[in-house]
């Protein structure tokens, strides 16, 4: 049996409400809350970035897995906000966790699906018997340009998964991917904020890839939507995953547990991975989970998980996603938020 042996997620404590952003740009918060189903989002502290988020999520994953970190043979961090343009994020992480030097490390990039890309490769390395354990992380501290629609959603957080063969808590039954050249969202080298193609990001990008990957995954697994207890989709806003679920034949109840975006925002590479960790926090042995990520550019990765008896032994060993989402919040106003996100130019 191959799959997840430990998982962990992390969200910063800081939040900003949709109202605080809308007020600054003369937008109507009610229409954003209704239209995009977004209420508030996480904001990283000035001392947080993709690396620190990945480290914290991974520490929780190691705790749940109960393994010696030195036995981890591969570390892949997927993000679109790696702190360095050139220098892998994972090099810092292996030192912080005490993984040692006998390890493969790489940064992954594929807009919002870099995390699931890392999960796929980690899973395959274990399956191929190349490494005993492989650690995959999706984490981001994404930015939207001031006044842009993305500013309401771009948030910070991440999740980490350790793949292995013993004491599996969620077996990976099937995986797939659906990819095409679709320029819906991009950021050129040296540009600070990403750009997107407005409405083009919906139908020809998100829905085309999520729905096609989802359909192919159902075909490949010979399973039907009603065979699953939970479904998790990439969450660029609250509405898109609900619509994708409906198109594929999943119910609101099936996506409810992993649908954390209204209060978290879009954590990009951490989006569907944090949704999955919220599901694993409460899943019961035997539950089946359907997951499809999405990354602009564009592509979707699909996974079918089957939760094992071991899940109940690990759920309480580290903080749960919903607890981090609902408690210990520190709200920022727009001025503090602009400072935290370094949107204002300071003297050197």
């Amino acid at each position, binding site marked *: 049996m191959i799959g997840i042996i430990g998982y962990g997620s992390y969200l910063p404590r800081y939040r900003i409400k949709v109202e605080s952003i809308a007020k600054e740009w003369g937008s109507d918060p009610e229409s954003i809350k209704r239209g995009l189903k977004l209420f508030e989002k996480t904001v990283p*502290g000035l001392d947080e*970035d993709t690396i620190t988020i990945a480290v914290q999520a991974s520490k929780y994953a190691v705790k749940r897995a109960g393994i010696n970190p030195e036995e981890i043979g591969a570390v892949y961090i997927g993000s679109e906000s790696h*702190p360095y343009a050139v220098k892998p994020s994972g090099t810092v992480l292996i*030192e912080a966790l005490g993984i040692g030097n006998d390890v493969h490390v790489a940064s992954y990039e594929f807009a919002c699906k870099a995390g699931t890309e890392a999960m796929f490769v980690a899973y395959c390395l274990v399956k191929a018997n190349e490494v005993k354990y492989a650690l995959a992380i999706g984490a981001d501290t994404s930015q939207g340009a001031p006044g842009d629609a993305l500013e309401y959603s771009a948030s910070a957080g991440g999740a980490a998964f350790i793949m292995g063969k013993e004491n599996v808590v969620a077996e990976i039954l099937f995986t797939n991917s659906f990819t095409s050249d679709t320029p819906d969202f991009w950021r050129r080298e040296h540009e600070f904020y990403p750009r997107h193609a407005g409405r083009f990001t919906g139908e020809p990008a998100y829905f085309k890839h999520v729905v096609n990957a989802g359909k192919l995954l159902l075909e490949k697994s010979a399973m039907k939507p009603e065979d699953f207890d939970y479904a998790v989709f990439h969450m660029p806003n609250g509405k898109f995953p609900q619509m994708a679920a409906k198109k594929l034949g999943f119910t609101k109840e099936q996506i409810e547990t992993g649908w954390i975006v209204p209060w978290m925002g879009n954590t990009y590479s951490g989006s569907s991975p944090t949704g999955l960790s919220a599901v694993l926090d409460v899943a019961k042995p035997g539950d089946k989970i359907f997951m499809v990520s999405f990354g602009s550019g564009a592509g979707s990765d699909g996974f079918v998980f089957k939760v094992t008896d071991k899940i109940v032994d690990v759920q309480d060993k580290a903080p749960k996603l919903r607890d981090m989402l609902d408690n210990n919040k520190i709200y920022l106003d727009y001025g503090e938020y602009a400072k935290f996100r370094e949107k204002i130019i300071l003297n050197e």
Partner: protein
Amino acid sequence: MITPKYVREIPQRYRLEAAKCKNCSYISFPPRLVCPKCKSRSFDTIRLSDEGKILTFTIIRVSSDIFSHQTPYGVAVIETSEGAKLMAMIADTKIEDIAIGKKVKLIFRKIRDEGVSGIHCYGYKAVVI
């Protein structure tokens, strides 16, 4: 440029590696060559837990330039559950919640940047729980 010194200190700054005296069990953080208690020179390398409490603290309102947009912030002397003492910036905590005796967790954070084009320097901070 602080890179060489930064790299030497990674085991302590990233994962709280300390030296435990093989003779009298005194814990030195950062590690020392000679035990300050019994003068022994043999140690085991241990990793401090992430739990501790505030022994004393101060609030920085006027900082050096690199921390100027983080003021006001706390800096505390922390005693870890093993009895090691270390100094750390306080993160994610309102300054009115910082007090002597409060329990803290040591977390991994970015401490500073070497200017706009230099490296990011990471290390431990303490958050009041």
